[in-house]
């Protein structure tokens, strides 16, 4: 759990003191209670979801296309509001809170950067959210500059976003949210369409933010990312939580993964196959696999 003083370190004024009716009974920064949601005129996209997201967790949300992953995370900053049930974000009920309040707590990086980017320069895009928060120009300058540095775009601050590559636009979209210094960060498929180095860079960034104490929620199809970075995995299927456990536990349930349109990450698949040859370790990353294999081969 994040201690309150540690949380106030963030320059945004989202802190608990401004919300007198805030419920102090739970440690969870996001509480989901009996959440159901239907898009207008459609069958339900989320059904009776119950979750507690604790401060400091690195949660991967996985599931097939259309399983409700993105619909779920859009509830966390009020982009979508429950049809039934409640979502509490740092004690704020999303049904009775404005997106502008919630967005001080939950930063949301969209899957497709082009749905997010609209400004005429990299700098303008990255600083837009801060300007809305009416911060002084020095803080805007510093936080924007830090965010652009974090994604290696500080050299391109005057560039038009359309003149960036897809990977760079993805990083710009991330920077404009990073600049807000929210305690919770939602990354919707952050590495889709990224090459290996950009993917590494984005994940190192996420790891760094997590290490600073932020809560990271990542929607992804990339099982290798789940294995390598997540502390907790939520598997969505047909709008319901099919499984909520550690990566190791989730990957043990191969049948369930297959039934939900997923697959084991390659490293885990290889380690699993090697059980037949007497290998009994359960590594999640390539480095762990190499290390445990060397030990096994030598003994």
């Amino acid at each position, binding site marked *: 759990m994040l201690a309150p003083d540690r949380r106030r370190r963030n320059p945004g004024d989202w802190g608990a003191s401004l919300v007198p009716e805030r419920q102090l009974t739970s440690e969870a920064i996001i509480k989901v209670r009996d959440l159901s949601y239907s898009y207008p005129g459609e069958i339900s996209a989320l059904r009776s979801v119950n979750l507690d997201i604790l401060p400091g967790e690195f949660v991967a949300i996985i599931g097939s296309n259309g399983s409700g992953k993105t619909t779920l995370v859009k509830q966390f900053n009020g982009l979508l509001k429950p049809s039934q049930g409640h979502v509490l974000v740092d004690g704020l009920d999303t049904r009775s809170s404005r997106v502008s309040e919630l967005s001080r707590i939950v930063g949301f990086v969209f899957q497709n950067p082009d749905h997010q980017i609209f400004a005429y320069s990299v700098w303008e895009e990255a600083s837009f959210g801060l300007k809305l928060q009416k911060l002084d120009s020095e803080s805007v300058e510093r936080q924007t500059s830090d965010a652009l540095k974090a994604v290696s775009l500080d050299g391109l601050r005057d560039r038009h976003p359309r003149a960036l590559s897809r990977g760079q636009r993805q990083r710009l979209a991330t920077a404009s949210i990073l600049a807000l210094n929210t305690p919770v960060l939602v990354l919707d498929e952050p590495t889709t369409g990224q090459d290996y180095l950009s993917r590494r860079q984005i994940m190192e960034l996420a790891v760094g933010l997590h290490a600073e104490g932020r809560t990271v929620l990542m929607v992804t199809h990339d*099982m290798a990312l789940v294995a390598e970075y997540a502390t907790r995995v939520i598997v969505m299927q047909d709008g319901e939580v099919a499984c909520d456990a550690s990566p190791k536990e989730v990957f043990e349930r191969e049948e369930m993964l297959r039934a939900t349109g997923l697959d084991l990450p390659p490293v885990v698949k290889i380690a699993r196959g090697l059980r037949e040859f*007497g290998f009994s370790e359960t590594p999640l990353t390539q480095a762990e696999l190499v290390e445990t294999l*060397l030990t096994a081969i030598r003994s």
Partner: protein
Amino acid sequence: MKEPIVVAEDLTFYYSGSKEPALQDVNLAFHRGEIALLVGATGAGKSTLYMCLNGLIPHLVPGRVGGRVLIDGSPTSEQSISELAQKVGFVFQSPDVQLFSHTVREELAFGPENLGLTVPEILRRVQHAATTIGISDLLEREPAYLSGGQQQSVAIGAIWAMLPEILIMDEPTSNLDPQSSQRVLELIRSLNREHGKTVLIAEHKIDATAQFADSILVLNEGRVAMQGEPRQVFSQTEKLHEMGLVAPAAAELAFELSKYGYTFECWPLTAEEGIQAIGELL
């Protein structure tokens, strides 16, 4: 004897106003009926290469061209974009960039309509594409409300209706979950095997695609860095790393173990091959 269907000879391209070439002295050949996987970091020149193959370069995109591209034996500079559109089909990375119609049927008819075909021929093409791709049951649905995998199939179908000999696919599975990715790749392979189409796929998801490819082309900073069979290319793991690229997990694992003196007669590419090769060491 394999017959080349796409040939680039000393192909160089500078975008208008750029001092750095996007492609430089590219020489390559893709053969009729093969599946080639294009690998390269962002900015390596993949998109520029596609535009050279479907004629947007030199016909539409401003810039300076050197060398030439031959499609089916004739230079792209001597064929119009619409002629080339019937030979080289391009499937976009995100289906939602490509799809715009209210029904899948309209989407599939759009290409053939623009080729100026007769109505019966258009209808025949729509039927053929729907059947081949396996989306006949979706014809009256609205593309925007389909799943990611279905949308990608419709996007492929819309190109298929133009009956191109060559299909270029820009990261066809990047938005898809693992099983939908597998299905789309299997669809691509069946189009290749059963209809003899030549397929060029660009993908960052090497693990899923490597096993589907007959050949790999590696682009690096606008140049051809490697071209060959998958096993030959992916066994040069160190060289790939220098270009910011990776090999499939099994090949990477073999590379790591080789540093400790373990050798592999056959460099593994798939998880299954990796299990077999490494199992023998245990």
